[in-house]
């Protein structure tokens, strides 16, 4: 579970952390991904595991388009840039939720049978649910991939450089909008991947994103803005804390543990565990 939080969060870490753009519609990106993988299953009987790359690709396009149509302009605001970003993406989230309600109805849906759903695997006497296990594997792969992408390729460096100083970057011939559109696409694709896997074992409904979005923000901030590794570590910590809290407190309070740990960490380290900005 923690690794899945990590996967949701790492997409956000890319957008929120590396590019320093607030995205309050991240949970809704997740919701769209879950619906996509549901409909691919319902109409074409494609197993969520197979359709995951398709969903990720679709979300990549979606993320890039959202950046070019909306966020680009929100970032251009001279005054109150932070608030403009918050409310532009918040408005977007409301619209997406409304559209989902309109087209998909508020009904709860789930994918009844899939290759992984409901199966468990036994490793050394411990039973583990398969979907979560696959999710964890995909998350680790995605993290490693993203880590190398950010730190070893020119494009990854370009993203960081663009956040640092858009003006200077323009001087060396990097198009800020292309870099950020790509970054948004990638962030959305990662959350798409998470959504496709989660569609197997979570109910799908228009408001599903909201419950995960706050945890994703907390995960990113816990790890520290500007750090991919931080989001990964944050995800694992959040997953562990949630599991431990669920043991000691009633299940409805399990998020309290996560929030308390976040507060504790930032009081001691005001920039999160591995934050650079």
């Amino acid at each position, binding site marked *: 579970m923690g690794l899945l939080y990590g996967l949701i969060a790492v997409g956000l870490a890319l957008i929120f952390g590396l590019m320093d753009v607030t995205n309050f519609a991240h949970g809704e990106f997740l919701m769209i991904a879950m619906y996509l993988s549901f409909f691919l299953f319902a109409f074409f009987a494609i197993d969520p595991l197979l359709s995951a790359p398709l969903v990720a690709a679709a979300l990549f396009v979606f993320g890039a388009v959202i950046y070019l149509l909306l966020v680009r302009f929100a970032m251009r605001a001279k005054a*109150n840039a932070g608030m403009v970003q918050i409310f532009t993406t918040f*408005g977007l989230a409301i619209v997406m939720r*409304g559209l989902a309600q*309109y087209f998909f109805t508020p009904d709860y849906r789930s994918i009844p049978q899939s290759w992984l759903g409901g199966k468990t695997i036994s490793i050394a006497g411990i039973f583990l649910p398969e979907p979560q296990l696959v999710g964890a594997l995909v998350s680790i792969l995605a993290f490693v991939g993203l880590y190398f992408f950010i730190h070893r390729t020119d494009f990854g460096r370009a993203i960081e450089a663009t956040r640092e100083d858009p003006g200077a970057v323009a001087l060396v011939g990097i198009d800020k909008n292309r870099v950020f559109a790509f970054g948004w696409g990638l962030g959305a694709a990662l959350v798409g991947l998470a959504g496709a896997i989660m569609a197997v074992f979570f109910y799908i409904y228009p408001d599903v994103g909201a419950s995960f979005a706050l945890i994703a923000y907390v995960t990113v901030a816990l790890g520290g*803005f500007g750090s991919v590794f931080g989001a990964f570590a944050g995800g694992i910590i959040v997953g562990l804390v949630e599991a431990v809290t669920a043991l000691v407190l009633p299940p409805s309070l399990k998020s*309290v543990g996560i929030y308390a740990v976040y507060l504790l960490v930032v009081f001691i380290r*005001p920039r999160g565990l591995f934050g650079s900005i």
Partner: protein
Amino acid sequence: MDKDFAARRRRDLIIAAVLAAIAALTPLFVKDVVVQNIMILTLMYAGLSQSWNILSGYCGQISLGHALYFGLGAYTTELLFTKFGVLPWFGMLAGGAVSALIAMGLGYPFFRLRGHYFVIATIVIAEIGLLLFHNWEWAGAAMGITIPIRGDSWLKFQFLRTKLPYFYFALALCCLAWFVTWWLENSKWGFWWRAVKDNPEAAESLGVDVFNSKMGAAAVSAFLVAVGGSFYAQFVSYIDPESVMGFQFSLLMALPAVLGGIGTLWGPVLGAAILIPLTELTRFKFGGSGRGVDLIVYGTLIVLISLALPRGLLSLFSRPKKTGAAR
């Protein structure tokens, strides 16, 4: 310059008095209960947003967790009323005091944080409050509290047959929040806050007590929001954690100020006067379908306004030379 400033402040006060007088007379002409309801909510949100604006607009500490104080105000009042029979008027003050104290207690660790870390911390603390009230049996847990009906009276601040008293109280609350803002704007606090917002390091070096000025803003802001929460609880006469402490309240308090002009005296009032009727009307017109059309319309409006007018609607009225300086 000083003369201009004094003149502007006098003008603001006169405009406010005239607007309040006009608002006070409207119920003579508007008898429709639905419209009166919208007016009450508009005034309440104007007051709440004005209070939010003190901490987040003037002092620059963006809080998206003010629902906590709103909920605390509502719960303190109603717990005192239903469990101990304390009149809501005292409960209101108690709620304000509790919220102000908690805001200051939280301020100690919170005001060390900057930027996103601070904003997320405020969201998280409100969410913790929400979850705790959800699980607090004595306070009604998820079922909430239904306020017992004891008949119409000013003493118990409960009116069944008419909404007018609520209207006048909301108006008074809105005026109070406005007046407090107006008064603080020109006090040493107001100048400190703007200095802290623009550049905390520079302010500190010039002898501004940055930490205490943030604490002051938080306390005033939380107190007024909690009074709003108490009012809301009496007005709707039923509260549960979700309906008074949910995240949407934090946003609904911030939104009018942001739309009208954050960190300005008139921004919250203007923003609320436009936003709240619009919200209620879209809900009224499109909400019945249950298919989210109201959400689509509402969300689109928020996106368009925040993109088109990053400084808020007030920027439409100010002359270009003024827009440079943050008032």
